[in-house]
């Protein structure tokens, strides 16, 4: 039985890790939850973001946090273009097609990365990589603390965009009643692409905040995408606060599960929660009843 000196740091660490998961899930909940696009390329696009951050840092000497000004806008443009040029066109609006198109995209992107970057594990070395913040007797890595607050701010910003802007209203209108929204003059293709772009821009933010404490390889997205889907379902599809809380819960469950059940078995907790939510609260923690 681990004592409190381990449980508290483990819990805090779970919260910071969970915030990172939440960041990745934020983009997905927008794309998957609001637009019902099952984006299998989410992990691959996270990898693209991570490589972008790595490239800017190692080639141009740009700090990952300064890259926040560059990578998310670039990812937005990429996402917009992908939805408008490939996913939207190839899928003809049918869900099963979207699934295959995004799966295909992820394979293409991963193999391109394998070709250009090879399978080396890449990391960035920043002056603060090893810095820690002492809090309640725990050493919290500085990059993770920053990521924690970054996730909170991003969730709040997305919530504001969705509830206070015309774009947010248009997205919600399209999500609820596509034909009706088009009838009142909303350009559905444009709104779809904007949402997809926003979702991918979130991945850009996640990439900037993640890389200082992680690494990038062409297959790095695999480890995150399943977790992100779980969080989206747990939090309630399309709910940003839900994704944030879901991410934090998953992070804590993973950390404590690892502590009490062993690192190999600890992951089981995540999926037990997933199944329980599906059984007893299928709309998710903060989702609305359908």
């Amino acid at each position: 039985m681990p004592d409190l000196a381990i449980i508290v740091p483990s819990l805090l660490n779970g919260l910071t890790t969970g915030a990172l998961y939440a960041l990745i899930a934020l983009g997905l909940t927008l794309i998957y939850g609001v637009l019902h696009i099952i984006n299998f390329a989410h992990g691959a696009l996270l990898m693209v973001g991570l490589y972008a951050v790595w490239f800017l840092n190692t080639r141009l000497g740009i700090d990952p946090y300064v890259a926040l000004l560059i990578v998310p806008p670039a990812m937005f443009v990429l996402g917009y273009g992908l939805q408008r040029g490939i996913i939207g066109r190839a899928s003809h609006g049918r869900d099963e097609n979207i699934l295959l198109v995004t799966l295909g995209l992820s394979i293409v992107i991963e193999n391109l990365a394998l070709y250009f970057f090879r399978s080396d594990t890449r990391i960035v070395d920043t002056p603060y990589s090893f810095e820690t913040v002492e809090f309640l007797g725990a050493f919290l890595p500085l990059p993770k603390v920053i990521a924690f607050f970054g996730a909170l701010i991003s969730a709040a910003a997305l919530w504001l965009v969705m509830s206070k802007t015309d774009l947010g209203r248009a997205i919600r209108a399209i999500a609820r009643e596509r034909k009706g929204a088009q009838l009142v003059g909303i350009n559905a293709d444009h709104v779809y692409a904007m949402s997809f772009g926003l979702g991918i821009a979130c991945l850009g933010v996640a990439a900037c905040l993640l890389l200082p404490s992680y690494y990038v390889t062409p297959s790095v997205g695999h480890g995150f995408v399943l977790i992100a889907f779980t969080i989206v379902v747990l939090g309630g599809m399309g709910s940003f606060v839900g994704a944030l809380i879901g991410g934090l819960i998953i992070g804590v469950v993973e950390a404590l599960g690892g502590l009490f059940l062993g690192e190999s078995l600890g992951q089981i907790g995540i999926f037990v929660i997933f199944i329980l939510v599906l059984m007893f609260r299928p709309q998710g923690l903060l989702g609305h009843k359908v």
Partner: protein
Amino acid sequence: MTGETKRRGVDRRQFIATGAAALGLGITGFPAVLRAEATPVKIGLIHPVSGFIAFSGTQCREGAQMAIADINAAGGIKSLGGAKLEAVLGDSQGKPEIGAAEVTKMVEGGIHGIVAGYASSISLATSQEAAKSNTPHVVDVGVSDQIVSRGLANTFRFSPGYGKIAQFAVDNLDKINQSAGSPAKTAMIIHEESLFGTGTAKLLSEKLPEKGIEVIEVIKHANPTRDFTNIVLQIKAKKPDLIIPANYYNEYVLLARTMRQQKVEAKGIYSVLGGAASSYKFVKEFPEAAEQIMDCNHWFDPTSDVALARKKAAEDKGLFYTYEVFLAYNAVAFLADAIERAGSTEKDAIIAAMAASTWDGHGMPYGPTKMVDGQNEGAQPVNTQVLNGDIEVIYPEEFASAKPVFPMTM
């Protein structure tokens, strides 16, 4: 709507038919084209170049291809009229069953020999599959002793196995510990969950107590593990004198980084086949975290000109000269030497030549090759330590380039 569905159905059938025809051509037509020229010797290289151990797999492939290029540049297989070696590449994606499927495909394509599979679990599958057609198979890295204990006549391993490495690791750790006045009394083992990590952990848990070092905890983790904080917190709570990691590169990097962040203090970090502690990549990227970490791993003979020339050639290509590179290189060169002496691409002749090999052009601390039941008896690991940003050999003495620093002074 139905018309569209119907049309698509036909398309799919056409696609499959075309694909099958193309595959048929690939299998039957390809060798015929080659036969028109001097017959190349086809060597299958099966490595996990994608998936969770892709870095290592790619390094293996690079090393194997360097060997093929060197042998071809030196005139190919002379006893076969200067026949060139031709690499047939396969990707196991880190999965044994896919590795085995690659073997089946290559055997159907008329392969003469196979070098595979980096991970133990994959090597077990590929060699077993190759045995069905008696295809000569050299295991480049896989360390599980099961690989050579199944009585497969086609399977050879040029590098050392678990049993040997673990015994060597324990004996030398004991020597290092004793010569420092035995400061290490407890150890904690952190290992990954596949055959390599689990097997190493089991062997060490049995053998370390014989040397007066108590194993106070063994922690297993998954691949990939995204966060090592929990594990490191447990290390901090248990305060072992020695920390013994047995995992692959990505996890090793995260573990080392987290240990630094959490300010873990130990008398030594001693890896057995640590994915990173004998890696120039790790030392270059994490000079501070790597400093004074010890490892028991595959390593070249630092006193051998052959080894140093190959190291330089690899580094000139922009490669990190990791153990994967030189072990895969030597696995191919060992196979090529056997084909040269066999003077034939007959499977039995190659296998007999490998079994009787006394090849010594490997630049490893092994001595002349001596195969017993498919295992090179002379093969042994060495102990390395990262000292002043470079990887030095500290044991055995005859190959050593530096004295061990223990306990750690960091």
